[in-house]
């Protein structure tokens, strides 16, 4: 496994509390005053040239939010968030609609370069490969997308700045744009689907998001179309104290297929930052959506100071018969993760999948898992979760599988394994299984252990140093999930895991 050697090399190069993506870019920001009120929501809506119905929708959510209480059931602890001490809108100073990369603010491009967003890929694909590109990519290392075609909708704080591949996608009939643009250009689609999976009243953070979301991605794949390339968004939190409220909406019509990648990095900060995104997926008859995430936000420093609060609501609705939604996530960052990508298996014969790797180190707290709600007939779901806890971190898997009264032949398989590295961390498993139908077949298994001495001995006996041996074993432990990632992400994910665990061994 050559990747392992690379991982080790990379781990060596980096100190434990040195966050690789902890740079900060000085770009002028255009932002609303701190705090949340109806006026701020009107401001955001006006900034985005939104139609009245959208403003009403936001205000409705805001009024609802005022009546809600922050959830406390998750196994995470953090100081109370002052929602009036957050900027709800920040946009990079607008350059008038860049038509090509050369028109984009060079500062931004540098940021992307540091992040390794392959905007250059456009040129590679067009055959305009500059000799410099290869070098740059070698430097970027982590995020190289050497093969495959990836369309990037880069999100810089709150506004989508660059959207590539638009034309080619348009040719296939695929709409891939920022959600703000979709609200303006495709209001009928947005009106029909927005909030239909995660309603504005869903939960505290989703409701907040509905009120103040600033941007995000919109994907619409029409009937029978197989999206010609992988779609990708990079989220990046930049301006100090800016909560990010992304809203993503992906619709795959009958027989359509789309694979979507989401990768995240954020610069180093002292103050905690709030991120409350909502992602809604809708798959109609025979459609398939594959959603992959690599999350690598700032986890806080070695003392547990700072770091991102990641309170995300992700839900997919298998609305059509024989539809399929697959979530794959690699969670290595954030101080606190509160995230349960779920599938509602409404259509007959629909299926849902959840593959997850959650690595926590330092003082990170992860409470993540999934929900598989079986409503249709002959639905199936599969959950593979791998948690790795090191340092002083707490890593919780929380998942729910339920079969409705009428969900005949519902089938679920769940496997969640936890690995503990060090005696100061915790690994917890909280699965909920609810069967209301005699034909349901649910299986759940979970294990928790440390790396077995035998395994380690076996590897070290062959002359491999301890740290390397552990990386090798961990890579084997998460293999089932890594295999589900698109190839480009798999490479990145493996490296991320290695970096995240640095310093935990010894």
């Amino acid at each position: 496994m050559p990747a392992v050697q690379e991982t080790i090399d990379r781990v060596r190069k980096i100190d434990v509390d040195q966050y690789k993506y902890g740079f900060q870019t000085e770009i002028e920001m255009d932002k609303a005053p701190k705090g949340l009120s109806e006026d701020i929501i009107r401001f955001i809506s006006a900034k985005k040239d939104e139609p009245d119905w959208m403003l009403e929708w936001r205000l409705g959510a805001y009024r609802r939010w005022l009546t809600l209480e922050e959830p406390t059931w998750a196994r995470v602890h953090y100081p109370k968030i002052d929602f009036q001490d957050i900027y709800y809108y920040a946009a990079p100073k607008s350059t008038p609609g860049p038509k090509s990369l050369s028109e984009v603010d060079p500062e931004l491009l540098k940021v992307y370069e540091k992040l390794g967003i392959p905007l250059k890929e456009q040129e590679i694909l067009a055959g305009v490969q500059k000799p410099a590109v290869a070098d740059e990519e070698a430097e970027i290392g982590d995020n190289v997308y050497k093969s495959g075609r990836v369309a990037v909708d880069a999100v810089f704080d709150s506004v989508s700045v660059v959207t590539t591949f638009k034309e080619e996608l348009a040719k296939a009939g695929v709409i891939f744009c920022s959600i703000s643009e979709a609200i303006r250009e495709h209001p009928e689609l947005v009106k029909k689907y927005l909030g239909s999976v995660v309603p504005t009243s869903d939960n505290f953070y989703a409701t907040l998001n509905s009120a103040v979301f600033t941007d995000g991605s919109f994907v619409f794949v029409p009937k029978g179309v197989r999206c010609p390339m992988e779609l990708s968004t990079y989220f990046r939190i930049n301006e100090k104290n800016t909560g990010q409220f992304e809203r993503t909406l992906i619709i795959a019509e009958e027989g359509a297929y789309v694979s979507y990648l989401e990768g995240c990095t954020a610069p180093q900060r002292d103050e905690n930052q709030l991120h409350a995104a909502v992602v809604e997926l809708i798959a109609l008859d025979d459609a398939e959506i594959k959603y992959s995430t690599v999350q690598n936000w700032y986890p806080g420093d070695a003392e547990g100071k700072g770091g991102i609060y990641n309170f995300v609501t992700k839900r997919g609705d298998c609305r059509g018969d024989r539809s399929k939604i697959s979530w794959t996530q690699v969670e290595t960052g954030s101080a606190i993760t509160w995230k349960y990508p779920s599938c509602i298996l409404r259509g007959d014969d629909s299926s849902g999948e959840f593959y997850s790797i959650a690595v926590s180190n330092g003082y990170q707290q992860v409470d993540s898992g999934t929900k598989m709600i079986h409503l249709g007939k002959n639905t199936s779901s599969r959950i593979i979760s791998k948690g790795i806890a090191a340092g002083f971190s707490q890593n919780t898997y929380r998942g729910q599988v339920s079969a409705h009264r009428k969900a005949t032949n519902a089938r679920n398989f769940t496997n969640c394994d936890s690995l503990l590295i060090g005696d100061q961390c915790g690994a917890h498993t909280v699965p909920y299984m609810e069967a209301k139908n005699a034909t349901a077949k649910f299986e759940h298994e979970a294990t928790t252990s440390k790396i077995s001495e035998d395994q380690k001995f076996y590897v070290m006996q062959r002359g491999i140093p301890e740290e390397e041996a552990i990386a090798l074993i961990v890579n084997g432990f998460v293999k089932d999930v890594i295999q589900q990632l698109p190839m480009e992400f798999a490479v990145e994910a493996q490296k991320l895991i290695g970096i995240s665990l640095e310093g935990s061994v010894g």
Partner: protein
Amino acid sequence: MNMHAQPQRTLAETALIDAFGERLSLLPGDGAVMVKRDDAIEAIKHGLPTRRVESWHYTDLRRLLTSVPAFEVGAVVKALAPVLEGSAVLPVLNGVSQTKLPEVEGVTVQRLSEKLTDGSVAPGLDPYGDDDAIGALNTAFVADGYFVDIADGAELEKPVELQNLQAGGQSHVRLLARVGAGAKAIIVERQTGEGDETLVSSVSQLVVGDGAEVTWLIVQEQPDTATHLAQFKAHIGKDAKLTLFVMNAGGRLVRQEVVVRTTGEGADFKLRGINLLAGDTHTDTTMVLDHAVPHTTSTEVIRNVVTGKARGVFQGRINVHQYAQKTNAKMACNTLLLSDDGEFSTKPELEIFADDVVCGHGATVTEIDHNHLFYLMARGIDEKSARGLLVKAFVAEVIEELDDEALVEALEERLDGWFSTHG
């Protein structure tokens, strides 16, 4: 008990609070005990737990406990023949312990009412957490029961059977047992009754001394008019072994909590459970197991059969404390859901703070394997009998694991009894 202030008291809550006022003067206890009772009723005044309280997520006691029967003083009930032949029977009849008791060598029995009056059991009356509604209810109202002390090194020749029998009305009983170092004992806790509406709360507390071996059987066969709220709490000492067998085969609203803590290295805990659910009933088995010291082991196997409109719940949480290295804990919960109107919810939890451990759990919900059914039917067995055989085999597996022949036979008899009325 409940973090959320309740807007209005339910009928059941009001009835409990009123009953406390009426019964207070009749309840035994010294000053310390009475203080505990007051604290407990305060907790109930804050409201019975709802599904918002995580440990009561599947048993919303506030909603499910619709009425509380009055205390029935005059009802008569007689002690039953023991589950295991030859056992020494200690009956609690309608909440009252008896004076004429069989003598068993090495065993000292005291009535709990006396221990409450002299205050010696006061320290053990505290609920084990904010969400311990059963503990609070019992502490507020407990009037009697037994304290069974088994001397160090005693090896009991015959089992002891604690019978809690109730014929309608309310009763709140506590059964305490201390098994001395190196002693060996089989103890049966029998929970049953007859008659109209019944509300029973029963708390068992067991201390297993170092090196002792205890098998504790809970046989719950309440009538389907009964609300049965029970708790079994145990501490297991160094190199001691506790095998707990729980059979739930009755009751309308049942919650059996099992709260176990390993307190000495080398302690071993086994939980084997059978839930036979029928009719329009609700049965909840909730276990909290604390591995508090290094080098302890546990295995739990729960088998459930759900028929009719029954709702079943199993929650099992294994906590491994930070210094409890080398813990080995395994839990399995398997359910046969045989009816489309029935339901079963499982929440097996692992909470682990030590790294050098091996912990695992498995849970399944399914119906009868069609291949197995086919196999039997191909041999000329009709479908109903074939199903019966398979279901029985499914639960009997847990019983057969017990290595005591008399125990296995007695439990299989109870199993046959249930299948003959519900098969």
